């Protein structure tokens, strides 16, 4: 197929073709040439990032490529902001929070991540002067601009791209599903004084349709996945499905066998904490899981085995 479209059989072309095929993007001469051109100009961008931009119909500008790279390559990011800077930017809920203040903190954080700087400027230009203080992304870019060339500048710029990537993917999800698709938020947290990554995938709120109590026990009210990746406990994923009846199903997944045992031993205290919020919590299930698929829109496709490369078949 590569020969037919005039591409050389190089490892770089194979990688690009593989990435395009995996995300269901047609393997055409135009897509290959565009991909080669972008990847040659932006050496930090992976073929998967270019393929994702094509799959989501996002223009492959340097800023958009960098934003998508921020989400895709988060695990391999080497330039990270130090804990003090994250704290200063209100980007790090620390372990001193109790559940109530942590809840307020997360709400505040999602309010900031859930609206773009552009939308704030567009919808309420009067607040533009306060954006420099309250908008995380523009604060990060400000930090990058004032520390030109330094490690902090690079890390701040990368974190800003990471936020832009989340917002871009969420906007595509909103556009494609008419606001019914999943949203993705990611932020660092402190676990036992060490930074860990927290990702949340959630489905937007829906109005109640059920009329009877029986139906209300089947109709979802809240649906979210919370994934935390820490050095000590490994990956722990929690799925929460709440129903209009007030019943809550909670499942815990972990990669490490020691963490699975620990979760099984301690899950009753989580059930108690969720019950205190007003939920009728069904017995919590703990499951060992080895494969964790990316939680952002399009991420699951990257983990699926490709069906075929040749799109003409």
């Amino acid at each position, binding site marked *: 197929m590569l020969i037919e479209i005039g591409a050389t059989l190089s490892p770089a072309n194979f990688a690009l073709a593989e990435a395009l095929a995996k995300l269901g993007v047609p393997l055409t001469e135009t897509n290959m040439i565009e991909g080669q051109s972008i990847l040659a100009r932006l050496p930090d961008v992976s073929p998967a990032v270019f393929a994702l931009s094509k799959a989501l119909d996002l223009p492959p*500008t340097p800023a958009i490529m960098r934003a998508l790279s921020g989400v895709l390559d988060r695990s391999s990011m080497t330039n990270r902001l130090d804990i003090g800077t994250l704290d200063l930017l209100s980007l790090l809920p620390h372990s001193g929070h109790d559940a109530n203040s942590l809840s307020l903190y997360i709400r505040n954080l999602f309010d900031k991540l859930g609206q773009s700087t552009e939308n704030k400027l567009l919808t309420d230009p009067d607040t533009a002067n306060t954006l420099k203080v309250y908008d995380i992304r523009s604060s990060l870019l400000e930090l990058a601009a004032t520390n030109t060339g330094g490690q902090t500048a690079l890390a701040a710029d990368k974190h800003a791209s990471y936020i832009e990537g989340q917002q871009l993917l969420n906007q595509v999800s909103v556009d494609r599903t008419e606001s019914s698709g999943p949203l993705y938020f990611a932020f660092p947290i402190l676990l036992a004084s060490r930074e860990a990554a927290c990702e949340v995938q959630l489905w937007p709120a829906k109005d109640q349709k059920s009329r009877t109590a029986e139906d209300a026990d089947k109709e979802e009210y809240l649906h979210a996945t919370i994934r935390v990746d820490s050095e000590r406990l490994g990956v722990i994923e929690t799925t929460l499905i709440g129903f209009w009846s007030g019943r809550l199903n909670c499942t815990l997944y972990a990669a490490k066998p020691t963490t699975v045992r620990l979760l099984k031993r301690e899950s009753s205290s*989580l059930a108690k904490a969720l019950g205190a919020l007003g939920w009728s919590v069904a017995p919590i299930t703990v499951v060992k899981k080895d494969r964790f698929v990316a939680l952002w829109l399009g991420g699951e496709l990257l983990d699926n085995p490709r069906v075929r490369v040749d799109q003409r078949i």
Partner: protein
Amino acid sequence: MTKDSAARMIEEETALALHISSYDDSQEQPSEKTHIADEILKSARQHRVQLRQDPLLVEHLANYNVIGSIHPELYPSVAGILTFLQRLSVDA
């Protein structure tokens, strides 16, 4: 990053931006959205708010506001889970 590599990156990005810009110009007239993106960039410059100077990124993020779509009950539930994990990681 060295000064040379930073300069090279800017050069490359400018070249790519020009390439994309000329591609777009040949395909269609500037859209209403692009006009809005220019207005947003103008407003950002006016108020000295840091923003990526990429009209296509700005255009895609111009409507992004999902705050109203999030369940208020989500926050205490997520906080309950994170508090549980924080305690677990200290005890482990």
